[in-house]
């Protein structure tokens, strides 16, 4: 064989070497990408004013920013898109905005964008308008200075600004509209959306012009998200390496035992604000319901075996509750009236209320099927024949129905928009003017209003505590538990779930 032949043969081998290498491997090694299973539910929009699911909120904080930001390590609120901020004596907040910040489409971030955003979020069809109702307007002082004017002082203003005041690019939003924005949002955040395949598969890439700020540049250049509708295939995808991480909150506690046996998976958990509860329609908004009678609500409280639910359905990753709020909320009160598990007492109360043979009711549920089934069984044991309306993965539909006052009984969960103050939950569910209120009293309403008007933390804590005591005495809810968030991931991935239940994928990294 001559030299030419040998050289040809060697060159051919080199070409074949390249051909034999998967194209994807050449262009994008594993260390360049993080694949996250977002959970079961398919979002219909990535706009957080349209959909308030946790997956949409989580993604927002990865492709978007807020003026203030919660540091996941210290838990403190620090400037984000703002350079600095201060609260004025009248309760308004004045902020200096960062200069040289751009939206992914090249649009500049400025005071006009903040004003546009609040106006948009306060519209009646916005999912967060209730949270922002006491924010009057944005006064533009100059291109990079604004004042958030409030109707009255808001004790949780900085948390609202950090978690609910999402920032929109006015030019892009006006161009593509609400639907277009929901499909392909544009923000200032560490990742930018590259492709969206009907929300079931999305690709993001690192924002090369990111200003850094407290989040810093995304550590992993590419982020891919997937929706997997059933729990077991989610676990299968993780074990087989198809996905690197299951979104915090999407891991079913029952699967942890199996996952811990896998040498490829790491399971981490942390306490979060999220609570699970059973809401009864005490106002009769959904029609004539037995829950208008306090004795029936007390009966339901006695009928449910919370400890068993915590142990079995939540596999111990939860703490049974007496109060409606989480121990992590400011103002949490543990010394509320508790209803021990006592089916005999429940039946007695039902009989006293005129329901010795129980009654029938529609029962809506969305999360943790095992807990929902357990509740169903407990209700049945005291004669409440609940017809389950399973709405797994359909939070937006359930929540719409809930706000419309069409639900007599629901097993639900609430993460308080990551606002660490009891008012974030109590005002939403127990203030008379809230569409999410299915039961309150003038006393509770007054206590909550007073708590919102007070600047004194001690006084606020006392008022919030009183409100919780009243709520427990009235038995408006059956508080089931506050939970830990579980995150399951590839054992090599460096990532921790956050106490505010917002996964910061931009902080995840692969080892060098």
């Amino acid at each position: 064989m001559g030299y030419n032949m040998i050289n040809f043969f060697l060159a051919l081998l080199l070409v074949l070497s390249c051909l034999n290498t998967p194209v994807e491997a050449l262009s994008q090694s594993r260390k360049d990408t993080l694949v996250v299973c977002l959970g079961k539910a398919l979002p219909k929009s990535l706009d957080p004013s349209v959909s308030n699911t946790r997956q949409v909120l989580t993604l927002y904080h990865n492709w978007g920013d807020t003026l203030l930001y919660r540091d996941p390590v210290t838990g403190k609120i620090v400037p984000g898109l703002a350079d600095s901020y201060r609260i004025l004596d009248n309760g308004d907040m004045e902020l200096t905005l960062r200069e040289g910040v751009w939206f992914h489409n090249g649009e500049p971030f400025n005071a006009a964008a903040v004003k546009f955003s609040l106006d948009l979020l306060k519209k009646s069809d916005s999912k967060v308008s209730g949270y922002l109702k006491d924010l009057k307007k944005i006064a533009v002082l100059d291109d990079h200075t604004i004042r958030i004017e409030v109707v009255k002082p808001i004790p949780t203003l900085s948390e609202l600004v950090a978690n609910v005041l999402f920032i929109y690019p006015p030019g892009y939003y006006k161009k593509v509209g609400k639907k277009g924005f929901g499909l392909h949002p544009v923000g200032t955040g560490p990742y930018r959306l590259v492709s969206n395949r009907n929300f079931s598969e999305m690709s993001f890439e690192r924002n090369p012009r990111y200003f850094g700020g407290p989040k810093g540049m995304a550590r992993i250049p590419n982020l891919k998200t997937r929706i997997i509708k059933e729990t077991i295939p989610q676990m299968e995808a993780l074990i087989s390496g198809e996905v690197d991480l299951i979104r915090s909150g999407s891991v079913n506690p029952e699967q942890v035992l199996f996952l811990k046996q896998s040498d490829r998976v790491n399971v981490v958990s942390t306490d979060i604000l999220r609570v699970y509860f059973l809401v009864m329609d005490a106002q009769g908004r959904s029609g004539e319901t037995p829950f208008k009678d306090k004795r029936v609500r007390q009966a339901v409280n006695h009928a449910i075996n919370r400890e068993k639910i915590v142990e079995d359905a939540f596999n111990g990753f939860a703490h049974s509750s007496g109060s409606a709020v989480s121990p992590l909320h400011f103002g949490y009160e543990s010394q509320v009236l508790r209803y021990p598990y006592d089916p005999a007492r429940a039946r007695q109360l039902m009989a006293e209320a005129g329901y010795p043979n129980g009654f029938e009711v529609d029962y809506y549920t969305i999360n943790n099927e095992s807990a929902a089934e357990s509740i169903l069984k407990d209700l049945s044991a005291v004669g409440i024949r609940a017809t389950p309306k399973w709405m797994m993965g359909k939070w937006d539909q359930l929540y719409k129905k809930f706000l419309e006052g069409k639900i007599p009984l629901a097993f639900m969960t609430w993460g308080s928009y990551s606002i660490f103050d009891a008012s974030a939950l109590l005002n939403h569910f127990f203030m008379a003017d809230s569409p999410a209120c299915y039961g309150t009293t003038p006393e509770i309403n007054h206590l909550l209003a007073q708590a919102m008007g007070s600047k004194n933390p001690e006084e606020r804590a006392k008022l919030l505590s009183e409100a919780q005591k009243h709520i427990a005495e009235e038995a408006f809810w059956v508080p089931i538990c506050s939970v830990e968030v579980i995150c399951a991931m590839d054992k090599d991935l460096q990532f921790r779930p956050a106490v505010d239940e917002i996964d910061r994928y931009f902080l995840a990294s692969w080892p060098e």
Partner: protein
Amino acid sequence: MNKTHRKNVKRLFSLILILFWIAIPLMSFSHDLEKIPKQKITALYLYNFLLFVDWPEKAVSNSSTVKVAIYGDSQLYEAMYLLAGEKIRGKKLAVFSLTKPEALDDSFQVLFVGGEDTQTASEFLKQASGKPILTVGDRPGFSSLGGMVTFKDPSDSQHDAKKQERFIINLSAVHKSRLKIRSRLLRMSDIIYDAKTANPLKGQ
């Protein structure tokens, strides 16, 4: 350098290139190429059957253990054995590798039948018949033999989480044994009511 030496150097160089050609893709996708054995995934499903299948109260109330029998699949036995001793729904898991159908009695809750031998599989199913034992297999035609749960061909559904139906449930066999399968498993399955209509040759 003489001619022979030059030849040897060339050969060595070629050999290195060939090895390099083989190794590049292995290095690039080393993690993905470490394909997880299908038994690990089968174990995940068996674990979930233990969670979401309800046995008649009488069959489980007197025992503090939940027992799984495995025939004809040592890798699955090893994968399941990692969970042995753990508490599932308040009962300790015990995993047994069985070689003879006679060893299967009422105290078991799950039987997995692997292997190629249809005759032995039939004998195991006969032994389980009438008992509240969930019978699971992965061979085509397992339902026709009277099996309750048949995993689909891995090349068809494994590692593709978009495909929902992972297995076939023979509901008439399940009902006969007085077991109840919860909706979250039914949602992920193809359900058949009369196994006789299922064609074993087609893998149903």
